């Protein structure tokens, strides 16, 4: 047991949490933006997956940042596609989202098959690039805690810092700008927004596009930093966990970010545990993030009912 605590309390673990949280955090912030204007985006998983593959393939032929932008763009396009079918053609948003997930699962394998010339499992023979990491080793100079800070915060992806910035940017947007006011109005009472001359469907479209773009960024981070290269179904439920973080975060960017960190921490734990507890079966450890998500959802929802 002590070993677990030692691990959790170590600077290396904090660094691992930051790393595992980043993709989920992007997707959760995206999910928040679409949920806030009234369309629950269950396609985060598929958007991440397609974003990841696109980023990998593009980065094999272009600079890393072009790969990242491609992941973002393709996610945004998928969001626009969802908006088209959900808002214009009135299809149920959950069904549309699942259609995107299904297309993503089959489509990424198909596309990978072509991009690699026949490999349906991984992109190992593609020379894809990684997102560079930001060196903060100057923190070492701080007396006492400097080395610890370096270990925690140095060497993370550029995208990690973008995600942190986005938490505050989205908060500022929602609570300080006129457009944010409109976003919240549509989320709380669309009829009021409509009467005020705001088109709820236009904002819902923006929400879905933004959620796709952010999920795409999450995918890019996953396949260009956390792992370098694409493997079939590599998101492995992270998009759904992000959806859990949205529900847990009470429609607030900071709440959503905290929930994403919680899930990221348990994912990091499930990565660290096999080394510490070799006798616990890997399958059990693997379930930890999912179990935690279900439990967190149940417990938090219960509080809301009784409150």
């Amino acid at each position, binding site marked *: 047991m002590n070993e677990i605590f030692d691990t959790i309390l170590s600077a290396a673990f904090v660094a691992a949490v930051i790393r595992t949280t980043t993709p989920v955090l992007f997707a959760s912030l995206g999910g928040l933006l679409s949920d806030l204007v009234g369309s629950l985006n269950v396609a985060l998983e598929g958007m991440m997956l397609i974003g990841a593959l696109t980023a990998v393939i593009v980065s094999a032929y272009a600079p890393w940042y072009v790969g990242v932008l491609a992941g973002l763009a393709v996610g945004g396009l998928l969001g626009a596609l969802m908006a088209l079918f959900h808002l214009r053609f009135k299809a149920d948003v959950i*069904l549309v989202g699942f259609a995107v997930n299904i297309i993503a699962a089959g489509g990424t394998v198909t596309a990978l098959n072509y991009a690699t010339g026949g490999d349906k499992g991984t992109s190992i023979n593609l020379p894809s690039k990684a997102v560079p990491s930001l060196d903060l080793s100057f923190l070492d100079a701080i007396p006492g805690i400097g080395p610890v800070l370096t270990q925690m915060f140095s060497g993370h992806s550029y995208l990690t810092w973008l995600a942190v910035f986005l938490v505050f940017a989205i908060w500022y947007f929602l609570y300080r700008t006129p457009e944010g006011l409109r976003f919240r109005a549509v989320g709380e009472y669309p009829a009021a927004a409509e009467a005020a001359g705001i088109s709820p469907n236009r904002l819902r479209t923006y929400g879905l596009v933004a959620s796709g773009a952010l999920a795409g960024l999450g995918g890019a981070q996953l396949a260009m930093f956390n792992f370098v290269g694409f493997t079939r179904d590599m998101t492995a439920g992270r998009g759904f966990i992000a959806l859990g973080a949205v529900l847990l975060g009470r429609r607030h960017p900071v709440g959503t970010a905290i929930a994403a960190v919680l899930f990221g921490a348990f994912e990091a734990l499930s990565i660290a545990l096999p080394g510490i507890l070799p006798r616990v079966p890997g399958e059990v450890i693997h379930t930890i993030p999912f179990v935690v998500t*279900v439990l967190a959802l149940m417990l938090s929802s219960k509080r809301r009912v009784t409150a």
Partner: protein
Amino acid sequence: MTNGKIFFDETRRILFAAVIALLVALVIILIASKNPLETFQTFIAGPLSSKRTVGNWIDDSAKLALAGLAFSLVFQARQFALGVQGQVYAGGTVAAAIALSPLGLSWVSIPVAAIAAMMAGAFLGFIPGYAKAKLNANEIVSSLMLNYIAYDIANLFLRLYLASPKSGLTASEAFPASAVYPAFIARTRIDLGVVLALGAVAIVWFLLYRTAWGLRLRLTGHNARFAAYSGIRSNFIMVSAMTASGAIGGLLGALFVQGQGFAKIVVGFEGGLSFEGILIAIVARNRPLAIPFVALGYGYLRQGAALMGYRTDVPAEVIGIVQGIVILLVASSFTLPGRAFLNRIMGGSSAARAPST
């Protein structure tokens, strides 16, 4: 609306979906294949190329019908529980455990395993239902999480207790013949599973349209607040719908492992088929009696895609793209001719909701 008209509408709808699916597949093949004509021919005619492939088609269709049935039951109650995959793994594991136990040496293992698998699936279906009813936890996320958990636990169980060392711990020994569903046509996968699937369709239809429970479930799905106001215990209905759907998912697990297709349990035996039940349910508009036909039609395409994957340069996974696009188009309301007119009427009635003075 008369039954005749419903039948006509549904048939037209299903045919429309089939046309879309074929067109989408054709376009993908044209883009992707170096030899599109041959590839498309394999896709279209492949399933009929031998007795074995026909059998695979029918067997897949039976499984798809069960998956579609499981989804349609919760969709009719307007619940988006998506846990069929996990239920299949739970049911398959339990069925395999019974088939490999001493009980497997007797035919009794077939009904016993089916019932045990249904109970395991029902339990997994019950959890998100109960969590929603009592704790207000979103059923989409909780049921999806349970899929991942069930998959891991099934693999653990397989590795520790059921697997044979020869397989590298990824599959069990073949079940004893007495624990495998008998085939109706030799050397095909057409087996008892087809009968079980059709039986389940009939039972679900009867439950939904001839019992008070079914009417309660459908009314809850139409308007949960109205149901509560009428005295329907909608929480009970919701939980029981998810549990019953879970039982169907569990049964599907038994069909997988005990059917002629595997006759053993293998890691990842479900192969993603469960989620294809969403497509079946949507195209059939959650009507049980339409499900077998939709399943046969989609099963054919699926089989064609699988053969295309073996025999041509287009991977079988393209079926996922076809499937997703069909869901998008069928769930949308611009699809059928005459639909626009219907929408205008619906739009009119929603305008009439405002106090019309």
